[in-house]
């Protein structure tokens, strides 16, 4: 069974068709990468999958359940979790507090009012365990704005993992990270649970090659091709797209 499936998604902004009949399947445990030039409609597609946007036609199915009409927060509860291309964190809070928020929400404790948060041992311990796993334990008491951008990217992933996802959408996780920190990030991604379905939206072919079992190429809102990383990279069509020129084939 597919963990996440999109069938015939179409999204128009006025006369512009940004997502043009996209169908995709992310099986349980998949490592699928979505690539495409700027303006291909990757961000819109992520919006449609996560519920930020409503498709004009088509359906989104999560673990066999139609979630097309479900708001983002409810999709998260069903196990569909995303990270953000540009860090989208609680900047005034510490790293531990950032992760605590997600852990507490996932544990159903976000309406718990009687006990101080710091005394909720299971929640604090789980938050610390996740930070440990991502190598963030030593900076857990630092405010987001006080740590490097690369570390902030890891906090994005820490928050996502706190929510115990079934499907994880990583939106350009390596964007903006200095080269020496990319390796640590890729290593972290490689160590994620095997049964977790991951959809990676990425620009950097180096990252895609290391990560993906399957690659989907999106051009002008349409799926140009799907295949193994080798197939995709040797495709002349894909090359043309990336070297420019083919971007205007579809409106």
């Amino acid at each position, binding site marked *: 069974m597919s963990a996440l499936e999109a069938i015939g998604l179409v999204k128009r902004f006025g006369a512009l068709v940004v997502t043009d009949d996209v169908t995709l399947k992310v099986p349980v445990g998949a490592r699928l990468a979505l690539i495409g030039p700027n303006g291909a409609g990757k961000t819109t597609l992520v919006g449609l999958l996560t519920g930020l946007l409503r498709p004009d036609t088509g359906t989104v199915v999560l673990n066999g359940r139609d979630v097309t009409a479900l708001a983002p927060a409810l999709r998260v509860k069903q196990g569909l979790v995303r990270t953000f291309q540009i860090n989208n964190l609680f900047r005034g809070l510490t790293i531990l507090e950032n992760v605590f*928020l997600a852990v507490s929400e996932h544990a159903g404790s976000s309406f718990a*009012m009687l006990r101080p948060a710091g005394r909720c041992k299971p929640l604090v311990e789980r938050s610390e365990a996740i930070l440990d796993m991502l190598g963030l334990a030593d900076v857990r008491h630092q405010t987001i704005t006080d740590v490097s951008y690369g570390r902030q990217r890891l906090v994005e992933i820490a928050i996502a993992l706190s929510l115990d996802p079934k499907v994880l959408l990583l939106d350009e996780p390596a964007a903006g990270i200095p080269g020496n920190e990319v390796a640590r990030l890729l290593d972290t991604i490689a160590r994620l649970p095997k049964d977790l379905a991951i959809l990676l939206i990425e620009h950097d072919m180096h990252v895609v090659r290391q990560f993906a079992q399957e690659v989907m190429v999106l051009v002008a809102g349409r799926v140009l091709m799907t295949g193994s990383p080798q197939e995709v990279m040797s495709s002349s069509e894909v090359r043309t797209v990336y070297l420019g020129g083919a971007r205007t084939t579809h409106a």
Partner: protein
Amino acid sequence: MNHSPLLNRHRIHWAEIAYWLMALAVFFLFPRNLSLATAIVIMALFALSLDLVMGYAGVVSMGHAVFFGIGAYGAGLISLAGHHEPITGAILAGLAAASFALMVGPVLMGLSGLPQIMVTLALNVILYEAGNKAIAITGGDDGLRGIKLDPLLGLFKWTVFGQTSYLYALGWLFVLFLVVRCLVSSPFGVSLQGLRENTERMRFIGTPVRRQLVVVYVVSGFIAGIAGAVSAQTVKFVGLEALSVEKSIDALVMLVLGGVGRLYGALIGAPVYMLVHQVASEWNPFHWMFVIGGLLIVVVMFARGGMLGVAAMLAARLRGGR
């Protein structure tokens, strides 16, 4: 800093104990000024209710006097209807304010930024006008008179110098302060601060944003309602000013002076504002607003985080210098 403040909020600081001892000492030190002291305590409670929604959840309510007013008129009407027991009277009035918050909350909490400011403000203006017109209920310009209360707990008579009133108001402030303190230290409180920091992101960790905001809004409405009720019960009069936009703004100014999102900001801002008001209006009854205005400008420009913000900064600097 080697800790995560949100997760350590339940720890009690020595200054907190000092504060409450001082509040109690006022009772013995200023026996002739207890009616002013009572008014200060009531405004501190009102400003605290505003801090809960604004300082913690990031909701900007410009019309919080709506709840204060409902609580005040509620308590007045309950007494006039013949129920003279003060504590249950105040609770009932608080529940009336909370019910109103529950009615308007789902709409108001769906808004943010400027629309939220304007709609809460408009709601305040509308309710004020409604109060002005509904003479049969509110007494219009004449207000509600003839509020009677049984002795507090059946023991303490309501004295002319206001000893009972002061301790009664202070008791409410203390109990509700503990409630708010418990609330903001809890996982729920941490979640509220997540909403203040980044509402959008909270949606993507699965938080039912609006439901959480409505809950805190209702709690805040209840506390503001109690503040209004205690005002009606101790002054034995309710006038339209309880529902006025000026009342809402007073609380906001007190909070900004003391420090937003710090609990004690409300508890420090109220006495400072009202004492400055007292002294300045003795100096010049027509132009005292200049003093308050000047003070506000200084705090906003040079002391972000209010007086408590400055105190915290100085304390950190002292500790660093050691």
